[in-house]
């Protein structure tokens, strides 16, 4: 006999949320409570035991993008399960005497309840504000069952570095992009510092003068097979240097080398910084501290509209992998 699953309704959850705020309001604290919301962020995760990690990421994110967080935690159980709880997460705003609080609704569900999650969540998104779907475990994107919930949001966030089969993952992202979804990839924001350093190098007039002479480009990763980071960077460079021969290998970018008629420009990873070496051998250190998921998400959430540079790069990588 199937287990009985209690009915979950959006109205009931919203009422519970209202009670959470009422309680927070009545809690005696020296710090005022500020309810803040600038978007609805839907998060789908499968990782068991990542509650603390995810809470930390959302907590960090709420400073710049206070949101209503709706989290779907997919679990493997013998019996069907579909439950929900509501709570608020509060943090003291930096240098202020206010607690910034965001509301969170967390579902725990077995896969057969994905359609129920979709139906309930339709009533939970905040009116008139953007809705984003972050598929925290990118592999899920290749799971047809999950496609039921994709219509909840147009922008879909993933981290392509998580794809076990990068080629398949990239093809799927490109397919969704062509179908009208706005793809946002933390793997792309992770290489912003490399792209920005390249751009910065060519602000220098001497480097700029050899732009048309660049005939070789090498993007080299540290580890094994070619990863999406190296592929993205190589495709982006190829889009700007159509006459250059581009070689790309490995993952975990270690170095970019551009050769212009025998002269060499190089950017290499030096731990917490990149070191860019120009034509005259002058090296400049560019800070590159490790970036958290919240930091990468923040970059992606700052561009809610189309991102033509990324779209073109995704298309180029998907074509190359085809």
């Amino acid at each position: 006999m199937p287990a009985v699953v209690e009915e979950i309704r959006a109205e009931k959850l919203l009422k519970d949320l209202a009670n959470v705020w009422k309680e927070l309001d009545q809690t005696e604290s020296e710090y005022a409570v500020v309810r803040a919301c600038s978007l609805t962020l839907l998060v789908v995760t499968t990782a068991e035991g990542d509650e603390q990690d995810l809470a930390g990421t959302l907590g960090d994110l709420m400073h710049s993008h206070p949101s209503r967080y709706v989290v779907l935690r997919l679990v493997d159980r013998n019996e069907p399960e579909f439950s929900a709880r509501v709570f608020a997460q509060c943090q003291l705003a930096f240098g202020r005497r206010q607690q910034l609080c965001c509301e969170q609704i967390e579902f725990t569900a077995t896969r057969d309840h994905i359609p129920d999650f979709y139906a309930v969540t339709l009533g939970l998104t905040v009116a008139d504000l953007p809705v984003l779907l972050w598929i925290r475990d990118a592999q899920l994107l290749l799971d047809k069952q999950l496609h039921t919930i994709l219509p909840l949001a147009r922008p879909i966030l993933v981290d392509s570095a998580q794809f076990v089969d990068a080629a398949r993952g990239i093809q799927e992202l490109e397919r969704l992009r062509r179908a009208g979804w706005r793809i946002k990839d933390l793997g792309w924001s992770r290489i912003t510092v490399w792209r920005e350093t390249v751009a910065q190098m060519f602000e220098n007039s001497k480097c700029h003068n050899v732009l048309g002479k660049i005939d070789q480009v090498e993007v080299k990763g540290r580890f094994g097979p070619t990863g999406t980071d190296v592929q993205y960077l190589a495709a982006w460079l190829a889009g700007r240097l159509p006459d250059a021969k581009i070689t790309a290998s490995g993952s975990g970018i270690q170095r970019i080398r551009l050769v212009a008629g025998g002269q060499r420009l190089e950017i290499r990873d030096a731990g917490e910084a990149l070191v860019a070496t120009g034509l005259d051998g002058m090296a400049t250190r560019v800070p590159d501290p490790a970036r958290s998921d919240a930091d990468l998400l923040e970059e992606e959430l700052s561009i809610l509209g189309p991102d033509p540079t990324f779209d073109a790069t995704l298309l180029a990588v998907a074509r190359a992998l085809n």
Partner: protein
Amino acid sequence: MAQANPFQDPLRFERRVPSCAVIIFGANGDLTKRKLLPSLYRLAFERRLPQGFAVVGISRTAMSDDDFRQKMEASVKEFLENSPFDQALWDDFSRGLFYIAGDVADDALYQRLGVRLEEIAKTRQTAGNALFYLSTQPSHYGTAAGGLGRAGLAKSANGAWRRLVVEKPFGHDQSSARELENQLHEHFAEEQLYRIDHYLGKETVQNILAFRFGNPLFEPLWNRRYISHVQITAAESIGVEGRGGYYQEAGALRDMIQNHLLQVLATVAMEPSAVFEPTAVRDERAKLLRSIRIYKPGEVNDHAVAGQYGPARVGGKDLLGFREEPGVDPNAMTDTYAAVTFQIDNWRWSGVPFYVRSGKRMPKRVTDIAIRYNPVPHSLFMTGGDGDDSFDTARPNLLILRIQPEEGISLRFSSKQPGAGMKLRPVSMDFNYGTSFGTRTPTAYETLLVDAMVGDATLYTRQDMVEASWAAVQPILDVWSERKDDPFPNYPAGSWGPKASDEMLARRGHEWRVP
């Protein structure tokens, strides 16, 4: 025209600073230590500075490049705001720091500077671009500009640019402002001059433009038909803090209103420009400043009030009066408080008073703009049934643009009190900048330094704006300087200013709001 950089991605990358050298006159001064170097270092940290970047410090103190680097390292560590210090980055950044000792009045200094800049252009690849920053005493501005000009350093050559940043005050009065302009223009064209008013670099002041011209909701109501009056307040709780000698020559009207607050007023009241480009935006600001009514001497006392704080005991602490402050003349006639009713003679604002006040030793530090709308033409809810009609009156809408602290925007409107009857109560809708954008915002100097290096003068003051703002305050300064009586001190430290200031508004049926 140079080919664009194909690697740029303006959606994600911040604006790029081209290769250049920043030459700071007054490199041993407070501004360099507290603001300029920390801002430049922070820009390096944000990856916004180019590979070919250099700073040349100039002051009279004898120092080697290394001494200067060490001194600046200590300053950056001390004054860097909300930002980590990365030693490896500093080591790299500081290799681009150089120092020249010399007297700004000595032509030989500029010869040495020219030679040094040529060397730096080769070793640091600055492409000959140079931003000269006058952080010296204002009396040296003309001398430094002249020295640069005579040494041929003001001229752009081979596609390189030369720009000159000047800190306020731009003159002590209208005639000295013109004299300074003549000195600067002798060697620098107007488009090379960047007159810095750090108020315009504040994110929240820039947000006034975003609020007004990015939201169609408010702009139709932004005129004499709907607005009763505007109040601009810049209050400081501190006194002169060791700057008594300087301040007694300046005063609140010169130090705050003539520059910062008139620029804020212009930002609040200007017409939208056709495009968001430096010339277009500055044209509109200048046009507004030129529309400010110039008072005749006989009108000044009705429209302007000077104040000076006297001693008081505040919060259990005895505070000195201005005349007792160190370095201040015991008979000083300086205005530590000034309030002016400005009238803007144009179609949009005719008849709407702009009350502007600034003072030291006020109850708290606050800068804000309050836009008070007209009351409803016919109130349905005026009668107070229980005899207390203070909450029943439909109070006029009030829009507050908070510049500092707690930057944000509030809109006050009336709401029905819960329960029987129709009692109204004012309530507030608040937008808090820090809550919606929790990330670090750049300091005004970071913003303005980048603007000057990329050649964007939108947030800088232009000569005609300086002249127009001096024209607006000069009659007041003239009347005040000829005062025979001694009304000071006329407000106790820790209060909201002299009674005469309240009376100035009361004559028009208005009152200062308490920020």
